[in-house]
Structure formats: C-alpha cells, structure tokens
C-alpha cells in the first residue's frame, strides 16, 4: 500500500514504509499473545487522547482566568476605592466630631444632644452592614457600586434626620 500525497503546497508525504515502521513499533508495545491487539491499541489511544485533551483544556482555562482577572481588576479596584472612601469619610467625620464634643466640657449639651453624640460614637464605617457587596456577590460590579453609593446616601440622610441637634451644632 502506498499513501502518497502531492499537491501544490508540497505538504505531507507519508510512505508505506513509514506507515509500517510505525505500526511495527506500536505492535511491539502490545502483548503479542493478546488476541484483541487492535482493541487494546484503540483503548490506549483513546485514553491518551482524553488525557491530552484534558491537559489542553486545563491550560487554556487557567490562561483564560488569569487574563480575564487582569483585564478588569484595576477597574474594579478603582470603583471599590471610590465607594469605600466616600462611605468611611462621611461616617468617620461625624463619629469623630461626636466623640470630641461628647467628651468636652466647653460645649453645653442638652440631653437630646448628649444622646445623639453617644449614638454617633458607636458608628463604624468598618461595620459589615455598610459593605453592600457582601449581599450582592452575583451582581455586576456597576450594580454593586450603585447599591453601595445609594446606601451611603441613605446613611447620610438618616444621620441628618436622626441627629438634628448635632447637625445644628456643626452647622452642616
């Protein structure tokens, strides 16, 4: 049997000689007494093909994950930085002002103002209830950011509504 290919591109030519060499070498790998040589060879070939395919898939998948992460990480970071800074700044400035005024004897404090100052002193921007991503892990980052900023605006509104005396004192 002669398998010859010749075309304009002058690509592959596989001769019968080479074909039989390969077949002989493969045959030597198999048990000469096995009556199902062909089937065993087929199984081995399939197993090897499966292993190689899986390897290729794993490598491709890993490369994809790495590249995917790198393509968006900075953008996500920038968004998170902006949202975290806004929330913690707004809460902390009220909290710190309240702490100092509460402990100062230089300012007259009504009972209502004193209570407000005590409440505000317990605020913390690190409280997980302020971190909206924790409840929205499956949402796109733009949506998470909107929820975060909406929450921050709500917090500020509640501060203003619930602590009117402090707002009057600070003059905000």
């Amino acid at each position, binding site marked *: 049997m002669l398998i010859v*290919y010749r*075309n304009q*591109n002058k690509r*592959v030519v*596989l001769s019968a000689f080479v074909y039989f060499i390969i077949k002989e070498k493969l045959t030597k790998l198999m048990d000469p007494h096995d009556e199902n040589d062909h089937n065993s060879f087929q199984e081995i070939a399939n197993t090897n093909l499966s292993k190689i*395919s899986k390897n*290729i898939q794993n*490598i*491709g*998948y890993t490369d*994809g*994950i*790495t*590249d*995917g*992460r*790198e*393509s*968006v*990480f*900075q*953008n*996500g970071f*920038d*968004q*998170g*930085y*902006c*949202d*975290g*800074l*806004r*929330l*913690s*700044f*707004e*809460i*902390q*400035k*009220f*909290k*710190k*002002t*309240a*702490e*100092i*005024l509460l402990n*100062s004897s*230089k*300012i007259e404090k009504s009972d209502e103002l004193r209570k407000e100052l005590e409440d505000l002193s317990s605020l913390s*921007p*690190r409280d*997980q209830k302020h*971190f909206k*991503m*924790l409840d929205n892990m499956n949402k796109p*980052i733009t949506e998470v*950011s909107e929820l*975060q900023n909406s929450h921050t605006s709500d917090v500020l509104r509640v501060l203003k509504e619930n602590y009117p005396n402090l707002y009057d004192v*600070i003059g905000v």
Partner: protein
Amino acid sequence: MNRDINDIFDDIALTEEKISKESYEEGFKTGVDEGNLEGYKLGYAQGVNVGEELGDIYGICEAHLLLTKAEKVKKTLKQLQESIDSFPRTNDPEADIVGDLEHIRSQFKKVKAMLRLGGESHEPKKDLSF
C-alpha cells in the same frame, strides 16, 4: 473515504486549537467575574482605610473649630479641612494621592501640636479584611 490527508492532519491540529480556544474563553469569563469582585473588594478596603483616616482628621478639625476661640488655630484648622476637601475622591492616576496624604498628615501634626492633642496615631491601618 476520499479525504485529503492534509485536511485530516489539519483537523487534528485544529482540534487542539479549538479545545484550547473554547476553554480559554470559558476561563476568561470566569476570570472577569472573579477579578471584578476581588478588585472591588480590595479597592473598597483601601478606600475605607484612607477615608477613615481623613474623616478622623476632618472630624477633629470640625469639633475644635467649635471649641476653640483662637483665630490662628481656627485658620489652621480650616486650611487643613480645605486640604482634605481637595483630596482626590477617585484613584486618579494623574493625582499624587500618596503625596497629598502625606501633606495632610504633616499639617495635622502641626494642628495636634497647636491643640496639644494626645498621641493618637493615624498610621494607616494594614487590615484590609472585610
């Protein structure tokens, strides 16, 4: 079967490329989802650190503006508040965020000396956990 042998070899080679491409695209999509969340979480934690420090300093200025009567002190406190007000609120690559933060810290040291405040440290917190 009268297929061209080169087409058969091409199929074998392209199968590998096809598998690789499909799995890469699947991995890329997963990577994008993970990268967005991880990036946001890290950025948020960093933003909270910076915001907390600035809010602290701003709150101290705000409180002492109410408590102090010395005009010189009030002027210094307001200058410090202005520095904080003009601090970039985004991670702007053109802005010198670290430099601005150091400048604010330096101004705050002077304020603490003027007000004779205690040694409360405003070293940046390294805790980025949430």
